[in-house]
């Protein structure tokens, strides 16, 4: 029998980026907030010590900062003809855990989506005609525009101190920035990061080919910065151990380095770590959340009543909890009915290896940061004419190599023996003069058959069904990937590479190949309960005192890293809660 605690105004499930931002906003509004976090507390000086943070084996190979599949797992299959099996160890995506969530171990690449990304179906239909899109592609407009979200992109970037070069200020294109970006109201809070040799060479070659390269927007900061909350971040030192690792010198934007120091001082906030929420509780009508039930490390079940529930547990687990709690109708790909689990997407990543003459080129790949790099956006979204290409979508292309870690980032030319003296020689000859980390950050649009639901067989440690992922690449994305990869390879040639080895994405979707952790959708936002699980404020259509944060809301993914948009949506949703919902709790949108 669950022990019932005293009531709180708000219970937040998960203390990652969105949980931290929402907790801070709502405690500012005077509410009594508790956050329940499945993983442990993490903090810079306790967990990311400079004396041992740069440990590739521990953090990259052995996944120390991530969720253990033993604690919570997911199952995967390419299509419904297969039996989904557990992802017994992570591969294609790395699931975060602990205070700060993915904000601790991300690269801090902080992008905005394009204006056309938000009105995607309307825009593509207008430009290319409805028949241009595959029948089973289920993309849709978000229900909000870039311009509506712009102030909140700004708010997230100024929270983080994002380092970048504006490309479009209030409609005026700026030199040195991304000429394709939507109009921003003001420059980035800090200047762009310095770049390494490989990154600069890419930019030069891209310019020669007629593109407009610009520095990747970075949440690793180019200089020390104090954000509007009064929290100070440090200057990135290009240590080359960013994604997968914690930052030892407060220079990577994370909940710890931007929000938590302020949030934790508030008397109306507390966090309980190492507790797993097993259920969002509903009243008898099923239309109102009464709080959550969670389990602590001794296995005791505890009920936390609250007036409002914020589900901030990452896309996969948001959907799992919705399904386990009986909120909304589960999606059935055969009938197309039900909103929970539909329009799940990942990213379509590809790249190429560029081998350069070792006597002429030294890239010092280990001098790098998580969001370093020079990029071009000519082939992202609908920035280019797809008419004759036979696909839609795209991605930024960049020399964004973040590290020279010996196990992960040593490449040898094709044909090199896998072991022995020749292998050693190839390692020696190529380490400093090879670009391995360029990338085409391709979009993945949504499809009828790519979805989430509950696994019929495999269970978690509480006996609850795991979330099941059914996903494969579609021709559209594979064509796009080949196209982008070719463009990148051209630039590598222009840079002077002696040998280019293209690595376009090939199907089937492989759960062992890392392709970023940008998992989106499953409870998407929209204008109508018939086309979405959430309204544009991320409020559940089914349970109005439940808000579901994060990339779960994306109807499809774009050709960018999602965290900038996740942060913007969190602030946008928080603003609506503070200015409208708290004054008048109930549905904010009447469809």
């Amino acid at each position, binding site marked *: 029998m669950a022990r019932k605690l005293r009531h709180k105004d708000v219970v937040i499930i998960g203390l990652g980026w969105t949980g931290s931002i929402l907790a801070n906003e709502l405690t500012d509004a005077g509410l009594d907030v508790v956050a329940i976090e499945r993983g442990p*507390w993490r903090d810079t000086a*306790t*967990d990311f*010590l400079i004396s*041992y*943070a740069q*440990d*590739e*084996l*521990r953090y990259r190979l*052995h*996944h120390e900062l991530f969720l*253990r599949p*033993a604690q919570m797992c997911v199952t*995967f299959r*390419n299509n419904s003809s297969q039996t989904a*099996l*557990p*992802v*017994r*160890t992570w591969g294609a995506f790395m699931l975060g855990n602990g*205070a700060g969530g993915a904000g601790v171990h991300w690269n801090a690449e902080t992008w905005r989506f394009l204006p056309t990304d938000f009105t995607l179906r309307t825009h593509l239909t207008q430009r290319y005609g409805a028949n241009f899109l595959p029948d089973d592609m289920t993309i849709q407009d978000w229900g909000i525009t870039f311009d509506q979200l712009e102030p909140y992109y700004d708010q997230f970037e100024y929270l983080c101190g994002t380092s970048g070069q504006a490309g479009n200020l209030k409609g005026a294109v700026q030199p040195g920035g991304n000429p394709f970006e939507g109009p921003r109201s003001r420059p980035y809070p800090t200047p762009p990061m*310095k*770049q*390494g*040799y490989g990154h600069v060479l890419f930019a030069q070659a891209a310019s020669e080919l007629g593109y407009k390269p610009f520095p990747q927007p970075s949440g690793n900061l180019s200089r020390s910065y104090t954000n509007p909350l009064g929290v100070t971040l440090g200057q990135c*030192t*290009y*240590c080359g151990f960013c994604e997968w690792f914690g930052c030892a010198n407060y220079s990577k934007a994370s909940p710890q380095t931007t929000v938590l120091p302020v949030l*934790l*001082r508030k*008397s109306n906030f*507390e*966090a*309980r*770590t*190492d507790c797993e929420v097993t259920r969002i509780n509903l009243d008898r009508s099923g239309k109102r959340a009464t709080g959550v039930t969670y389990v*602590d490390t*001794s296995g*005791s079940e505890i009920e936390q009543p609250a007036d409002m529930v914020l589900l901030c547990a990452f896309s996969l687990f948001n959907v799992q909890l919705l399904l386990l709690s009986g909120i909304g109708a589960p999606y059935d790909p055969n009938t197309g009915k039900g909103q929970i689990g539909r329009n799940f997407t990942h990213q379509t990543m590809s790249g190429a290896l560029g081998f350069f003459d070792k006597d002429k*080129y*030294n*890239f*010092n790949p*280990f*001098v790098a940061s998580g969001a370093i790099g020079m990029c071009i956006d000519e082939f992202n979204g609908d920035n280019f004419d797809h008419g004759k290409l036979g696909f839609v979508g795209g991605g930024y292309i960049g020399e964004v190599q973040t590290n020279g870690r*010996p*196990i992960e980032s*040593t490449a040898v030319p094709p044909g090199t023996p*896998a*072991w*022995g*003296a020749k292998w*050693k020689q190839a*390692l020696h000859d190529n*380490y*400093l003069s090879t670009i391995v980390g360029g990338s085409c950050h391709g979009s993945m649009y949504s499809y009828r058959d790519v979805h989430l639901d509950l696994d019929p067989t495999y269970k978690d440690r509480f006996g609850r069904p795991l979330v099941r992922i059914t996903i494969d690449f579609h021709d559209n994305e594979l064509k796009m990937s080949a196209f982008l990869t070719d463009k990148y390879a051209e630039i590598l040639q222009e840079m002077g590479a002696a040998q280019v080895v293209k690595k376009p994405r090939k199907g*089937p*979707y492989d759960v*062992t190949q890392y392709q970023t952790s940008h998992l989106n959708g499953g409870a998407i936002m929209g204008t109508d309960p018939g086309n979405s699980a959430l309204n544009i404020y991320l409020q559940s259509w089914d349970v109005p005192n439940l808000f579901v944060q994060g990339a779960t809301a994306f109807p499809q993914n774009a050709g960018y890293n999602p965290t900038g948009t996740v942060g913007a949506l969190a602030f946008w949703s928080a603003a609506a809660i503070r200015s409208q919902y708290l004054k008048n709790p109930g549905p904010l949108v009447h469809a």
Partner: protein
Amino acid sequence: MFQINRRRLLETSAIALLLSSQSSRAALIKGGIPWKPGAADPPPVVRPGPWHFFTAQEAATVEAFVDRLIPADDLSPGGKDCGCAVFIDRQLAGPYGHLAGYYMSGPFQQGTKQQGPQSSTTPAQHYRTALAALDKACRSKFGGKTLAQLNDAQKDQVIGGLENGSFELDGADSKEFFKLILKNTQNGFLSDPIYGGNKDAASWKMIGFPGTHYDYRDWIGRHNQRVTLPTIGIADHPNW
């Protein structure tokens, strides 16, 4: 002179453990950043000594194996002298060896290649089985000699045979075992010296990776220049 005791302050201020009669455990974070003096969780530093996992026979086979995967030459010492067998031994004796953290609930069933590893066999079990099978196969093929007793050309022949599957093992999959030991050996060669391999950061010196420097602000702008910092590891600082 007269000093205020801080014990109670630290115990009760920012982090409190909720202890109920059922000894429920969750960390309650309230009031400030929880931090304890001396907090740290450093990696275990491997020290030379007796084998933790391998038997003497297994160790001899593995040492011979790693010394051919990474032969000694001008570029670096061989895999054995670099400590790759020690690395593998300590890894197998530790969490990696028994797939700690993996989802190990059944049912276990083979899936597609894209669905990833589905076996309940741990690396420790895999090595135990495969090394025994390898010794048996070598003895059978080479007149009673195990891998360590063969000459280099013969060793390479065996290893190449495992790689392409032609050298069969009774009770183990040659290719799968080869992939495993190759990965482990190369990881040992290239990881931080604290883990027992990559002795004296030999591989890092070979490739030109200066190791665990945290501050490269002076170098980010020096394009196409060789970094002249000493090669260091987490616990390897010959420059101190």
